[in-house]
């Protein structure tokens, strides 16, 4: 069951400058996300859902407002602090998988652990665990091009989980997958939320994908609908 808020967003706005025109991507959004929650962020293209996700994950900055994740206002962290914070607290899953093509599945999952002080043995153990969790323990020596789309996305999920982050952000993770693979990926994300108490934020425009979440939030023209 959901607990205390892990994400607290207050009066968050993001305005882009496109030439002479100001484009409002987010307009004074306030939102709480509970720990262990599987939140689906829905909305049409350009509604600001990805921008909101990026700010929560600390890879984009708002124009105004605050965004606290586990009590840390990420909008106030500098570049280096943000990088460390992301490594320790955020797991990313992208639409296009974004695995490093020259690394095996095992090495791709191991990548975030290179920034930690873990020994080689500990790293191997954590990578094994993460790959087992997504059902790909037998594919660890495969390069991304030797995997199917669904398998690639599961490797990406393993990479997101390997540092044991409290928050997993997934930006259209099923956008490039067939329906069967999409179901598998969404089921894994739901399991993470339900059994491992991970907070999962899923950006999607697909109602079927959103149905896997425990709550759905709609955005429209940068505002909560």
């Amino acid at each position, binding site marked *: 069951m959901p607990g205390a808020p892990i994400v607290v967003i207050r009066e968050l706005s993001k305005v882009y400058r496109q030439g002479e025109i100001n484009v409002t991507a987010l307009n004074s959004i306030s939102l709480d996300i509970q720990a262990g929650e599987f939140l689906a962020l829905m909305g049409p293209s350009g509604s600001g859902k990805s921008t909101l996700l990026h700010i929560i994950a600390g890879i984009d900055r708002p124009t105004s407002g605050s965004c606290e994740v586990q009590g840390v206002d990420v909008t106030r962290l500098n570049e280096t602090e943000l990088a460390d914070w992301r490594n320790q607290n955020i797991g990313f899953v992208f639409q296009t998988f974004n695995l490093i093509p020259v*690394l095996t599945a095992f090495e791709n999952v191991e*990548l975030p652990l290179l920034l930690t002080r873990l020994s080689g043995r500990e790293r191997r153990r954590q990578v094994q665990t993460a790959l087992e969790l997504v059902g790909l323990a037998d594919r660890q020596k495969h390069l991304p091009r030797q995997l199917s789309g669904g398998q690639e996305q599961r490797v990406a999920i393993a990479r997101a989980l390997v540092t044991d982050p409290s928050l997993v952000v997934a930006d259209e993770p099923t956008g490039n997958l067939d329906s069967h693979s999409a179901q598998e990926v969404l089921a894994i994300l739901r399991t993470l939320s339900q059994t491992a108490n991970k907070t999962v934020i899923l950006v999607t425009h697909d109602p079927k994908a959103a149905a896997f979440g425990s709550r759905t939030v709609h955005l429209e023209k940068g505002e909560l609908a």
Partner: protein
Amino acid sequence: MSIETFIIRNALRNKRRAALTVLSVAVSLFLLVTLLVAMRELTQPPEDVGAALRIAVRSRISIANLLPARQRAVIERIPGVEAVSPFSFFGGKYRDEELTMFAQFGMDPKQLRPIFGEAKMPAEQYAAFEADQRACIVGKITADKYGLKIGDRMPFTSTLYPCDIQLIIAGIYSGTIDDRNVLFHHKYLEEASGTEGQTGLWWVKAASIADMGPVTSAINRAFANSSAEVRAETERAFQLSFVSMLGNIKLFITAICSVVVFTLVLVSVSTMSMAVRERFRELAILKALGFRRRELFVFILAESFGLAAVGALVGIGGALVLFTQMDMSRVTQGIMLTFEVTPRIMGLAGLVAAGLGISASIAPAISVARMSVVDGLKTLD
């Protein structure tokens, strides 16, 4: 997986490009080393072992001006002088050659061993050389090149004197820094050319290192304000005076070296920029995963530096092996004698490679540092 493995995998992801980059660095550095070695050899000619005690005495006005034979007795009387020999360049063409690549000098055969002791030859050949006024001795390189042997005749037509000479080989020497020259009797030159009592220059052997300075000064003083003033100088200084005749060859070679290095920098910067640009999205992913600007810079620097280092190893190492194994004196027909790849030259080329590795990584590293994760993720593969 270690960070090193990750860097190596990235560097080798496009093997053809990596190989071509390494090859371009290697070829350029090989060329750079070759030019530096050539410049060193031209501007700092190698010295013979006996050079430290030898003094060249030439006309103060010009090396083309002949000196009177009477100076010999004056020089021989100077304390510290051990031996004196006239020495004149004949400038002959061998047989019907258009350009003869070895020099012929007239000298006093009796002073050969005292002054040019490093020329090794059996005693009977020395004796035969001294005994016959038409005799000559030939350096081993020339003898080998023309297949010459003792007793063979060597006809020369001079480009400087109005005469031809016909020499008979009495000996074949080796052991000097330039075993190409032909040495013959100065007396024969004087008689054949009608220049009795004149010499191109004097070679003087000092008794010891300590005598070099006083003897040099004494020779210069002895003929000061005479009709044939001289310039006495060490063999080294004498050699370098010839180098100055090469004009701005140093500037010319330096200009070529600079162009080589500059082109190399452009090629490397372009290659690294291309390599980084095509994986901007991956670098954005690394940033998202928590890699900092500093770490990404290290990745790019290490990759660029690594490729430059391998190129340097191949280029500089190749030059070292090739020029050590190859007889460059033979290849260049004696124009280059030792063609030595010195540690200093290797160090300089290594520094160029290191600078190259660093400079090639700066522009891509800056663009990656400036890139936001969101913008990087939008980059197309």
